[in-house]
C-alpha cells in the first residue's frame, strides 16, 4: 500500500520534472534491486550505445546525465545475479526512471555459506582480507553467530560446551580478545553476558563480515588479529521475521525480528530472542566415585548442572531520512541470563550448585548523517551498560560426575560467594568520512570505552575490604586515507593511537600509549580476479576481563602487557565457470605475523581457571583456502582448509622461582605453540529441489563435515608421546533439510548435529555436545 503511494509520488515527480525541465539533455535514473527488494550496490550498469559503464551507489541507484534523446539499451549485471537488459527511450529534456529487479543466479546462491555474493559482494571486494557470510541463507537453521563463523576458512570457534557456554574464536592464528566483535560497527565489548556472539541467533544479522588481519579504519578499536562485524542492516521498512526451534537436550530457541516505519520517517525496530537448554548431553569422562575415589575410566555420563537460558529484547525507536539525520535512533537493550556451571577449566572439577545470573540494561544512541556538508558523512554511537552480574556459590559440598555430593568444609564448591557486581561499561564511537574527490577520501575515527567493576559479596562481608574496584579506560584514535579507482585498484594508509589507563583501587594508575600504522592494497587483474595485500603494525591492549577476570573460569592478570604485532596478508579471489553448468570460486589467503608480547590463554596454576598471559614473541604463518562449486541450479559444494603454524619465539624462559630470565636459550625456542588447533577444515554440500509440490516451494538438503587435526594440550617438545595429553582428531558430521513454502513465508527445518555421536573436544579438552536433533519453524513476512 505505502509502497504504491511512494511509487505514485515518484512517477508524479518525474512527470513534473519532465514537464517543467528547461534542460535540453535527457537523463536516465534507476535503481537495481534483488528479488527481495534489497538494493544492490556496486552493480554494473552499461549503456550499450555510448560505452558508458558505471556502478550503482550504496542504495543501488544510478544516474546517467547529459544524454541525447533517443533509444538506449541498458545492461545491468551484478555478481551472483543474472544479468538483465532493458530498452529505454528518452525524450529531450526529460528524465526516465528505470527499475531493475535482478534474479539471483541460483547456482551461486543456494550454498549454505555464500561467499562473496549479492550484498556481501562489496565487502569481499575491499582491500582488506575479508569474508562475508550472507546470514540470510542461514535463517532457517538453528545456528547462532558463532556457529555460522565456524564454517569460514581460517576461523575456529572453540566452545567449552553447549548453549551459552564460553567460547574462544581463533582467526588465522590469533584468538580470544585479539579479535574484536562489532555489531553494525559498534564494539560489543561491553554488551554483557546476555548478548554475545554465541547466544545471538543468526537471524539478527543480514550478513557477518570476517576481517582477517588488518581491520578497516571505520571499525576503529584495537583489534589485532581481525574483526567480526555483524551487520543487522535496515533490511525492510516493515517486516516480521519469527522463528522457533526445539531440539535435543530440551533446547528451545525463539527469535522475533520486526520493524515498522511510518511515512513520516518514524521507525521502531524490535529484536527479541530467547535461548533455553538443559545442555544435558552425554560426555565421556574419567568419573570417580565420590566415596572410594575409584575412577571409572571412560564412563559415559550426562551433564547434570548445565542449564542455560537467556532472554533479550532490543528496541530502537527514532527517525530515518530526515534533513538533520539519515538515522537517529534511541534504543535500549534489555537482557537477562542464567547459567549453571558444570565444570571448571578442566573436566576433572565438577560443580552441581554453582551458577551465575546476569542482566543487561543498556541504553544506546545511534546517529548517522551522510553529506552533513557535501562529502562528509558522520556516525556517532554511544551506549552504557547498567547491567548487574552475580556469582552464586553457596553449597559447601563437592560433587562427582554422577551428581552425588559430600560435605566439603565451609568454602563453597569452589569459593563460597554471592558476589554481585556491575561492570559499568560505557562506549562512545565517533566516525567521520570525508570524500575529497571521486577517488580520494579521509576517515577519522575514535573509540572510547570505559570499565569500572564494583560490587559486594554478601557471603563474605568482611572481604569487602579486599574487594577492589577495578577500572580501565581505553581510547583508540585513527586516521586513514583511501584512494580508490573503482573496480581497478585501491589503496588505504592509516595510523592509529592507543591509550589505556588501568587502576585497581589503592594502586597506581598504569598508562599505556602506543602507535600503530598500516596499509592495504587491492588490485583487480580481471573483473573476476582480485589480488589483495595488507600490512600493519598494530597493538592490542588487554581488555578488562583479561585484567580483572570474569569471576567464572577466567582469572585476571594485572601484569598483562599490550601485544604488538606486525601482520602481513595476501589474498586472491577468483571466480570462473567451465561452462553454463559448472561454476567455481576460489579464495586463498596467506598470513605472516610477528607478535611481541603475544597474548594467549593458558591454564592457571592449579588448572582451575584460564588466564591470559604474554609470550615474549610468537611468529605465525598460515594459509587458508576455499573452493566452491555449483552445478546447474541445484547442487552446491564447497571445502575450506586452514593451516596455521604458531611458533614460540621466546628465547629465554623466566625462572618461576626468581622471576628472572634464565641465561641459556630455552629448549622450547621455535617449538610449536601448544593447545592451538593448526590444521582444520570443512566440506559441505547441498541440493535444492525447486517448486516441489507447488510453485514457489523449495526443498533443500545439506550436510557439513568438520575436521580438526589432533593437537597437544601442553608443549609438543616435552615427554614421550605415549601417555601425552592431547586433543584427538575430531570429525563432526551435521545434516539438515529445509522445506520452504508460500514463497519463503513459511519454513520448516530439521537438523541433526554430530550425526555419528563423535566425541568433540575443545578449549583445553572440554567436551562439546553429543548427537542432537533440532526442529526449526520460521515465519517471514515483509511489506515495503
Amino acid at each position: 500500500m505505502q509502497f504504491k503511494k511512494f511509487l505514485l509520488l515518484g512517477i508524479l515527480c518525474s512527470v513534473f520534472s519532465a514537464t517543467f525541465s528547461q534542460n535540453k539533455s535527457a537523463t536516465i535514473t534507476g535503481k537495481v534491486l534483488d528479488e527481495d527488494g534489497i538494493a544492490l550496490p556496486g552493480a554494473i550498469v552499461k549503456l550499450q550505445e555510448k560505452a558508458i559503464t558505471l556502478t550503482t551507489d550504496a542504495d543501488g541507484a544510478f544516474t546517467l546525465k547529459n544524454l541525447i534523446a533517443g533509444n538506449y539499451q541498458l545492461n545491468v549485471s551484478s555478481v551472483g545475479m543474472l544479468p538483465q537488459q532493458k530498452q529505454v527511450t528518452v525524450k529531450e529534456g526529460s528524465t526516465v526512471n528505470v527499475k531493475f529487479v535482478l534474479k539471483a543466479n541460483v547456482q551461486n546462491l543456494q550454498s549454505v555459506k555464500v561467499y562473496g555474493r549479492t550484498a556481501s559482494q562489496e565487502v569481499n571486494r575491499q582491500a582488506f582480507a575479508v569474508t562475508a557470510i550472507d546470514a540470510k541463507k542461514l535463517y532457517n537453521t538453528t545456528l547462532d553467530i558463532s556457529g555460522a563463523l565456524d564454517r569460514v576458512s581460517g576461523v575456529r570457534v572453540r566452545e567449552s560446551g553447549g548453549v551459552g557456554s564460553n567460547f574462544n574464536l581463533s582467526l588465522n592464528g590469533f584468538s580470544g580478545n585479539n579479535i574484536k566483535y562489532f555489531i553494525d560497527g559498534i564494539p560489543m565489548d561491553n554488551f554483557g553476558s546476555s548478548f554475545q556472539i554465541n547466544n545471538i541467533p543468526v537471524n539478527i544479522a543480514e550478513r557477518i563480515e570476517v576481517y582477517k588481519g588488518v581491520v578497516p579504519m571505520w571499525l576503529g578499536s584495537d583489534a589485532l588479529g581481525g574483526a567480526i562485524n555483524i551487520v543487522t542492516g535496515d533490511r525492510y521498512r516493515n517486516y516480521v521475521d519469527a522463528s522457533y526451534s526445539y531440539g535435543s537436550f530440551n533446547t528451545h530457541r525463539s527469535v522475533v525480528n520486526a520493524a515498522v516505519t511510518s511515512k513520516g520517517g518514524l521507525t521502531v525496530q524490535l529484536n527479541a530472542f530467547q535461548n533455553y537448554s538443559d545442555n544435558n548431553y552425554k560426555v565421556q569422562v574419567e568419573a570417580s566415585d565420590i566415596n572410594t575415589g575409584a575412577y571409572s575410566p571412560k564412563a559415559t555420563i550426562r551433564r547434570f548442572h548445565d542449564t542455560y537460558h537467556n532472554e533479550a529484547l532490543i528496541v530502537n525507536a527514532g527517525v530515518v531520512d530526515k534533513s538533520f539525520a539519515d538515522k537517529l535512533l534511541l534504543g535500549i537493550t534489555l537482557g537477562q541470563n542464567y547459567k549453571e556451571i558444570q565444570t571448571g577449566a578442566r573436566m576433572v572439577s565438577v560443580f552441581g550448585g554453582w551458577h551465575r545470573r546476569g542482566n543487561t540494561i543498556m541504553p544506546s544512541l545511534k546517529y548517522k548523517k551522510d553529506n552533513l556538508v557535501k562529502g562528509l558523512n558522520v556516525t556517532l554511537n554511544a551506549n552504557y551498560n547498567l547491567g548487574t552480574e552475580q556469582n552464586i556459590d553457596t553449597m559447601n559440598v563437592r560433587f562427582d560426575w554422577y551428581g552425588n555430593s559430600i560435605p566439603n568444609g565451609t568454602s563453597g564448591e569452589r569459593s563460597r560467594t554471592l558476589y554481585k557486581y556491575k561492570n559499568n561499561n560505557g562506549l562512545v564511537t565517533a566516525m567521520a568520512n570525508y570524500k575529497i574527490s571521486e577517488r580520494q577520501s579521509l576517515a577519522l575515527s575514535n573509540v572510547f570505552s570505559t570499565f569500572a567493576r564494583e560490587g559486594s559479596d554478601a557471603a563474605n562481608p568482611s572481604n569487602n575490604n579486599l574487594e577492589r574496584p577495578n577500572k580501565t579506560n581505553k581510547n583508540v584514535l585513527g586516521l586513514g586515507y583511501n584512494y580508490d579507482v573503482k573496480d581497478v585498484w585501491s589503496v588505504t594508509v592509516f595510523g592509529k593511537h592507543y591509550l589505556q589507563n588501568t587502576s585497581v583501587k589503592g594502586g597506581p594508575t598504569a598508562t599505556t600509549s602506543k602507535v600503530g600504522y598500516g596499509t592495504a592494497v587491492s588490485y583487480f587483474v580481471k573483473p573476476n580476479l582480485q589480488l589483495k595485500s595488507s600490512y600493519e603494525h598494530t597493538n592490542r591492549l588487554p581488555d578488562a576481563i583479561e585484567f580483572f577476570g570474569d569471576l567464572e573460569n577466567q582469572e585476571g592478570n594485572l601484569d598483562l602487557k599490550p601485544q604488538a604485532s606486525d601482520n602481513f596478508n595476501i589474498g586472491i579471489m577468483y571466480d570462473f565457470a567451465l561452462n553454463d553448468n559448472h561454476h567455481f570460486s576460489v579464495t586463498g589467503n596467506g598470513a605472516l605475523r610477528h607478535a611481541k608480547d603475544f597474548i594467549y590463554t593458558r591454564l592457571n596454576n592449579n588448572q582451575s581457571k584460564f588466564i591470559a598471559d604474554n609470550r615474549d614473541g610468537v611468529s605465525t604463518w598460515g594459509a587458508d583456502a576455499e573452493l566452491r562449486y555449483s552445478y546447474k541450479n541445484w547442487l552446491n559444494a564447497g571445502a575450506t582448509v586452514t593451516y596455521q603454524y604458531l611458533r614460540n619465539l621466546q628465547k629465554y624462559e623466566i625462572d618461576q622461582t626468581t622471576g628472572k630470565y634464565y641465561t641459556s636459550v630455552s629448549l622450547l625456542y621455535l617449538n610449536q605453540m601448544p593447545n592451538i588447533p593448526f590444521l582444520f577444515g570443512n566440506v559441505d554440500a547441498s541440493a535444492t529441489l525447486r517448486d516441489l509440490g507447488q510453485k514457489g516451494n523449495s526443498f533443500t538438503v545439506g550436510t557439513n563435515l568438520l575436521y580438526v587435526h589432533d593437537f597437544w594440550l601442553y608443549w609438543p617438545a616435552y615427554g614421550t608421546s605415549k601417555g601425552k595429553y592431547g586433543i584427538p582428531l575430531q570429525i563432526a558430521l551435521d545434516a539438515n533439510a529445509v522445506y520452504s513454502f508460500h514463497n519463503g513465508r513459511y519454513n520448516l527445518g530439521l537438523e541433526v548435529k554430530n550425526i555419528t555421536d563423535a566425541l568433540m573436544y575443545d578449549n583445553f579438552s572440554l567436551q562439546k555436545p553429543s548427537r542432537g536433533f533440532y526442529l526449526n519453524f520460521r515465519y517471514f513476512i515483509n511489506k515495503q
Partner: protein
Amino acid sequence: MKTTFSKAIAAVAITATLASCSKDDGPKNPGNFILAVTPAASTGVADYLVTAGSLDTGKVSIIGNGLEQDGTYRYYLTTNNKFYSMLYGQGNPGAVTAYSIQQGSLVKLTNFQTETVQAFAPVNNDILLTKVPRSIGADSTVYTYYQVNTSTNTIGKRGTLDALAPANNGEIAHFSWLQQVGNKVFAPFFPIKNNSFDSDFHDQAWIAVYSYPDMKLEKTIKDDRTSFIGRYFVNGLGVVENGDVYAFSSSVSTTSDLVGDKNVKRFTDTKPSAITRIKAGSTEFDKSYYFDFEAKSGNYYITNWLYIGGGKFVAHIQPKAKKGAYTAGSELAIVDVNAQSVTKVTGLPKLEDISGLTTNNYTPKDGRTAYIGVNLANTKCYVYKIDASTATATQGVEVIGGKITAVQHLD
C-alpha cells in the same frame, strides 16, 4: 597462491612426519631412580617423570622423554615400594596416581580421586591425607582425612575431625605436616584465623597427637621455647633410629595488620630458629634438650630437612637476614642432633648461580649419603651427591629441560 598452498601442504606433511617419527615410546634412561622435573617454560603444567639408572653420572632430558602428568602442582611420596604422585589442585579435586618400576620403566598402577590435601604421610600400610580448612565456619570447622590403603590403592576410611580442637584458642590448627611416631600420628601445626594465614598466637610450638587408625585427638603438646614446628607443606619432625623425635622451628610465623586499606604482613616471632626433642615413647617435649640453631650456625635458620640416619640431617638453610615465610633455603648444612653441630656443605655451585634446591630428596639412610637436586639460574640442573662425613657435595646426573622437584627411588 599455488606456492602458498603447496607450502601449506608441504608443511602439513613435514609436521605429520615429524610427529610420527621424532618420538619413541620407551624411557631413554631406564632405571630405578625417579626424577620429577618441572618444565622450564610451562606455567600451570605438572612435572614430567623421568627414570635414571644412576644419580652419580650421565644426563636425562624431558625433551621427547618422560611421562607427562596432568595438573599443576604435584607432590610425591614413596612408600611400600610404590611411588605416589599427588595432585594438589586448589578448587579442583585432588588425584593420586601410583606407580611401580618394572624393567627400569614407570608403570602406572592406579589412579584415584581425593580432595586437594594439605598434609600427607605414610602411616603403617596406609597413606594418611588431610585437608585443612582455611576459614572458620559458622557451625563447624573440620579437617577431612583419608586413609589410603597402599596394598589396594583405594580409600579405606575417611572422616572429619574438629579443626579448632587442637589449638583450643578459637583458631584453626593448620597442620604443617604429619609424621607417624610409634603407633600415633604427630601433627605439628600453626594456628590461623583466616585464609591469609594470620594469627593472634605466636612464639609457641604445638603438636596434635592422634591415635591411628581411629584418629582420636589424644592431646596437644606445647613448647614455648620455639615458634611452630615445620612450615606450610614442610615436615618439621624427624624420627631417629632409637625412636626419639626431633623437631625444628624456622621461626617464621606472621600475621597482617591493616595499614590504610591494605593488609600488610609482618613477622611476629621473637625466638630463634631451633631444634627440640620428644623422647621415644613420650608425648611431651624434652625440656633438657634445646639446640639453638641460629647461634650454632652463625645466624642461619632451617627451612627444611632430610633425615639420612645416624642422627644426621641434611638441612636447607638460609641466612636469617633473608627470612621469608615460604622462602626455601639455598644452602645446605649437615646437622648432627647428637653433637648439636652445624656444618655447611661445600662443593655446591656458587650461591648466586643457584635458583633453588629441591626439597623432596632421596637418601639411602646410611648416615652418610643424600641426593639433592640443584637448579641453577642458567636452566642447568643437577643432582648433587652429599657426603655427610666430609660435608661435601659432588655434581651428579644432569637434568635437561626443567627443574628437579623430586628425587626418589624404588626397588
